[in-house]
């Protein structure tokens, strides 16, 4: 339990603490235990560990589950199990579910904005801008689900009597190392394109700011997204990453939030030719780096395979 420490009560305690009698609150708040999101449920880490999460100014916010290697393997197994069903949904249906995520998130915008103010020290206006952009990002990718195949696929005019076409298909299970300093909009921006295209995802949340990810998982869990399509791990990138990067049943890695470990993870991924998206130039930036309302196809195509089908033409 070395990672865990008692919660420092925000705004209380301190040197003069002994002088005043403790006030009795009118109502005791119900605190949330932040857990993992695996296979559609919210379990604690099998290791029983958790770790304290503080705001940017050091105030203790909550404890988050400290996921283990076994949790990571469970998440991959759940994502693999969910892949056939999710990739087999119609693109229209996937689009509706992603839109539903936006609807549910919109209903909780005040909560997300308040948490962003508390955790990251954003101004209320900036926090609202970020939450709005995150909601809109789900709408954006909801619209992409049934369009990307026409944009990146097509008929091939081969020189012979053959019908021939190429169409994109999801790569499979994608491990997403979410941006470290952009816990909601950054996370949404890397996760939504992965599942919009029919992949399933295992997310390693921002290590220092994982709470927004768990809150988002609650939104996903109530948006008709099938269990296992997104698994969420909170914990240490250096602890979880090596097992995920070398896992033979993982098809692709988004290393955006992998930080200094990105090169080692890319090397590990080579063993099974796992597809890799390297951290981009803005990988360490805050939420403001993810505000572009039209990110295009660049975060979808790395997680798509092109399948080409031939058939003779004749009578």
């Amino acid at each position, binding site marked *: 339990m070395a990672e865990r420490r008692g919660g420092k009560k925000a705004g209380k305690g301190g040197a003069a603490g002994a002088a005043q009698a403790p006030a009795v609150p009118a109502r005791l708040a119900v605190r949330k235990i932040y857990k993992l999101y695996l296979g559609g449920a919210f379990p604690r880490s099998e290791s029983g560990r958790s770790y304290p999460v503080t705001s940017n100014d050091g105030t203790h916010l909550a404890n988050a589950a400290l996921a283990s290697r076994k949790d990571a393997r469970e998440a991959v197994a759940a994502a693999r199990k969910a892949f056939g069903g999710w990739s087999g949904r119609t693109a229209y249906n996937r689009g509706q579910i992603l839109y539903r995520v936006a609807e549910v998130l919109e209903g909780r915008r005040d909560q997300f904005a308040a948490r962003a103010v508390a955790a990251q020290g954003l101004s209320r206006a900036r926090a609202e801008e970020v939450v709005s952009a995150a909601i809109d990002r789900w709408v954006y990718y909801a619209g992409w689900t049934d369009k990307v195949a026409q944009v990146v696929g097509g008929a091939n005019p*081969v020189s012979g009597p053959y019908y021939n076409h190429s169409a994109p298909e999801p790569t499979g299970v994608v491990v997403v190392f979410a941006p470290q300093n952009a816990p909601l909009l950054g996370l949404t921006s890397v996760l939504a394109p992965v599942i919009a295209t029919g992949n399933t995802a295992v997310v390693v949340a921002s290590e220092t700011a994982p709470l927004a990810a768990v809150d988002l998982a609650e939104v996903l869990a109530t948006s008709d997204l099938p269990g296992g399509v997104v698994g969420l791990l909170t914990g240490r990138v250096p602890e979880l990453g090596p097992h995920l990067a070398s896992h033979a049943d993982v098809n692709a890695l988004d290393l955006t939030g992998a930080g200094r470990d990105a*090169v080692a993870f890319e090397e590990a991924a080579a063993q099974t030719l796992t597809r890799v998206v390297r951290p981009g130039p803005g990988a360490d930036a805050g939420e403001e780096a993810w505000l572009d309302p039209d990110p295009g196809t660049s975060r979808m195509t790395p997680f798509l395979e092109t*399948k*080409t*089908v031939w058939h003779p033409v004749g009578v």
Partner: protein
Amino acid sequence: MIFEYAPAPESRSVVTLRESYGLFIDGEFAPAASGENLTSLNPADETKLAQVAVAGPEDVERAVAAARRAQETVWGRMSGAERGKYLFRIARIVQERSRELAVLESLDNGKPIKETRDVDLPLVAAHFFYYAGWADKLAHAGLGPDPKPLGVAAQVIPWNFPLLMLAWKIAPALATGNTVVLKPAETTPLTALVFAEICQEADLPPGVVNILTGAGDTGRALVEHPGVDKVAFTGSTEVGRQIARSVAGTDKRLTLELGGKGANIVYEDAAIDQAVEGIVSGIFFNQGHVCCAGSRLLVQESVADEVLTRLKERVARLRLGDPLDKNTDIGAINSAAQLERIRELTEAGEAEGAQRWSPACDIPESGYWFAPTIFTGVSQAHRVAREEIFGPVLSVLTFRTPDEAVVKANNTPYGLSAGVWTEKGSRMLWTAERLRAGVVWSNTFNKFDPTSPFGGYKESGYGREGGRHGLEAYVG
């Protein structure tokens, strides 16, 4: 009445081989800095064809520098239309010299002249012609309004389709404004060197195309050179893994086209005669030296006996022998090392309990040869069902339901190609949708076209070659 085939050899006289070839760097042929050479053999009779230089680190340095200079001063600045005209010109010269190149390819590789003449060379010319036309239309390729070349591409190609793989690598790289340093395979360097002459003949600016001959060390020095921006490799999955590891932590972009263990699924309602032809071309085309070969036949139990009977009758009529004979169906195995690998795996197949069959077949006394071979009674755990043999060896498994066929087909770390034989359209599409493979041939097999993207899922690599998709690997 049985008619015997008379010998019908293609003349070698169209090929003029030099005794030795240097490296092609900056538009000139030059010996390797080390002075080291290797000899390319004719695998059909083990005679020496020519000596080629073995490029070392100094030569790699020189070639990469030449490519960089050419990219920055000439090729990257040229208009797309003018770049395209060079590629059109190359396509035309390839067509003009196609008989010479076909004969030389058969000599160096061992594949039948009927294949080099009718498949390899027409596809080489078509590939250059196709990408030539893209050079001034890149803004319309869906890769952004103004796609930029990456710079210098390091390209390493295999021995199974030497000139065709060169075309797949060089044509899209040049069309997009990159320059290249290409290493052909150790055992099949000769058509790449004639291609270097074609670049000279086309007045291609020096340094745009550089050809470094050599073996694995040369390839490693090239792909690991810090001055290259892009690595493109076709070859074994094992080397692919090493390359993927070596580019980690660099800015190099990577595409890999690796091994396969393609499933060819024959449903009970298939047109059996057509399916048999497809099975044969799927595994015996190019002696099975094909990464996308249909090396696992999955046949529905109800028609397995009939399919196998007809397949064996057909295979017994394949003609193995002189690659330059126009009636030859199966040529020589490319090298002693490859022959050894095929032998080792087929022996493992027998040792693990599969039944081995080959037709009566005269094997020439010199050269590297392997009779067409079919294994029946193969289980999914057998090495002959799991490992890429890269030879004329077919493993036969059976299935009862479409679900079982798909599960067995996908039960491999590879995902390059697959085949489906059925007369029912909905079943074909249902199956094709579920196969985790980059190319699915339905009621056909081993068809290629420059407009048709090619490449694998899973451990068969990443990226696509051919078509609009093939441009993506070379622009940033």
